[in-house]
């Protein structure tokens, strides 16, 4: 088990290294020159050269990446002397646009994304699985049809559309919740939650639809299994046959998807953040893209990749626990 985790951690590091390298190559070899963008006007060749050297862009690409990795471990600084910009370890790059380390920006943005993700995930898991269960158990009834219709609507409606309509109805029309912005958890749980209710509900609705469909189809498959007949043949009440034996068997793929989704969202709930004007990681990324602030783009991409890769590993380990037939070796 420990050996498995160790091996997977190494694999994870390799994946991240490759991701970083690919990101670097793509972003710093492309025609848009970050130095020219930061150079200002008029941009004389001398200034451009100075800016290049300051940003570390005068070195070959692999050397730049090496310095990036060094910075990740030991921190780095840009420029020399008094004017040098400090980027302490782990340095994910330095935004010359904002004059601050990317890590600092991520540090402010991440709690927002976490708040959105965790609340929404809890909601959609509960409602999605419950809806799917009702649908599967009452297959063919009006319950099933209603739930299927609702989940199809959720699957087919883009998050931002649900979000905009939510803002319109709950925010503007009925004035139930604040329409945008974010309050820190430290400002009190009330304001925090009230700002988050709408994003939670929107994200949960869209995702719950997917989970309801998955739960339903998984359960229907499990219902046909012999061991479900066995459970009934033992004299177990339906409540246990469905709630324990069936759900337990259907759970593995649901848990897998849940882990991956959380990993993906922690890397930036891009659309939700945009719709509700919340300054999380996704906002940071979009802002970086808009301002052509490459270090921010690269830093956020790598940070997101880390969560996805980590979620992948956790899901695989979880799989080993959930399915005794899978041996982690």
């Amino acid at each position: 088990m420990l050996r498995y985790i160790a091996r997977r951690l190494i694999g994870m590091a390799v994946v991240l290294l490759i991701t970083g390298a690919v990101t670097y190559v793509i972003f710093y070899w492309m025609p848009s020159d970050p130095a020219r963008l930061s150079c200002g006007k008029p941009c004389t060749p001398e200034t451009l050269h100075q800016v290049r050297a300051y940003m570390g862009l005068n070195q070959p690409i692999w050397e730049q990446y090496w310095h990036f990795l060094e910075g990740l471990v030991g921190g780095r600084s840009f420029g020399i002397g008094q004017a040098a910009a400090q980027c302490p370890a782990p340095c994910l790059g330095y935004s010359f646009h904002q004059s601050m380390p990317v890590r600092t920006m991520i540090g402010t943005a991440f709690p927002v994304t976490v708040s959105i993700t965790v609340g929404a995930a809890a909601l959609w898991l509960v409602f999605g699985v419950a809806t799917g269960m009702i649908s599967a158990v009452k297959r063919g009834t009006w319950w099933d049809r209603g739930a299927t219709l609702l989940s199809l609507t959720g699957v087919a409606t883009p998050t931002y559309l649900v979000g905009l309509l939510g803002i319109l109805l709950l925010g503007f029309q009925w004035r139930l919740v604040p329409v945008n912005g974010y309050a820190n958890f430290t400002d009190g749980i009330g304001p925090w939650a009230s700002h988050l209710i709408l994003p939670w509900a929107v994200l949960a609705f869209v995702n719950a639809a997917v989970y309801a469909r998955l739960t339903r189809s998984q359960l229907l498959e499990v219902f046909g299994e012999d061991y479900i007949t066995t459970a009934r043949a033992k004299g177990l009440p339906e409540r246990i046959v469905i709630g324990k034996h069936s759900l337990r068997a259907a759970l593995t793929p649901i848990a897998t998807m849940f882990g991956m989704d959380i990993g993906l969202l922690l890397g930036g709930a891009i659309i939700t953040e945009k719709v509700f004007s919340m300054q999380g990681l996704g906002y940071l990324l979009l802002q970086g893209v808009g301002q052509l602030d490459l270090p921010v783009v690269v830093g956020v991409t790598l940070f997101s990749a880390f969560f996805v890769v980590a979620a992948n590993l956790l899901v695989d380990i979880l799989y080993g626990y959930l399915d005794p037939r899978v041996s982690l070796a």
Partner: protein
Amino acid sequence: MSLSPELSLRKDDPEPFLQVTDLAVDFATADGSVRAVDGLNFTLERGRTLGLVGESGSGKSVTSLAVMGLLRPDSTTAGNARTSGEIRLNGEELLSAPARRIRELRGRTMSMIFQDPLSALHPYYSVGAQIAEAYRVHHKGSRKAAKERAAELLGRVGIPRPRERADDFPHQFSGGMRQRVMIAMALVNDPELLIADEPTTALDVTVQAQILELIADVQQEFGSAAILITHDLGVVAGTVDDVVIMYAGRTMETAPVDRLFAAPQHPYTWGLLGSTPRLDGDRRKRLAPIPGSPPNLLEPAAGCPFAPRCVFTDRVEGDACATDRPAALPACHLAPDDRDALRPSSRKAAS
């Protein structure tokens, strides 16, 4: 529908332990309604074993599910069966009994051993937990007592180191050992009726005999009645008291096992016997499979369902085999004398 004399009741008999009367099961499918069991009758007494024999699709497994109440709409999430007729256990009618009552009986008074233990055991729970669960549904008592009971049963069915192996998962057992686990689970509440649905089909030939012996042993020990479902007359030979031969959901003939082997009455039974390998048979003799394939249940035959595959239809006057359903058992239009004349002797059965 009359029963063969050996299995029928006289009016003054006390109520039999299990009595199935005119059992019929229909399944609604996308292509139409399918009658999987059609007018089945049998009785079974305590301590006796009944063999239900037929090819796949003959309705024998559906019969066992019907007896266990596993086709009822309140206890299925997969099927859509309609059951009619009567199933009486200790005089109590089961088809019309409330769901609660059926649940009480299931696993305690009647229990079932399934064909493929790998798919019939839950892959995510340890075998000990699954057996203990079966015990705890019907018995008050501590978790520990149930666990103890599970280990005890695992030992009884011949699993070495039962206490440790109780924590293992089904996939960690061999096929034969898994079937022993299944048997232990079926026995955990001392059932009065034990139904074994093709209990050896999924197993290696070498293990089959051991499992059959084990089932016979525990049945003796527990004094329960048993139904053994199989497609293999060879399995029936040494294990059961009475046999019901089924084809296309209908009973072809019923007889005590000795009589069935000595003087089988139905051409279908002759075919089954001819296609069953026998240890004491002539080794040069080739097995003769029954020509043709089982009928399509979507289009039930008006007459004898076996007629299309039967080579003796020309011995019956007119086209009774194709048009008339045989009224009595054995369900065959051949005259008794003809049957005696045509019956292949077990020695020179097939050509």
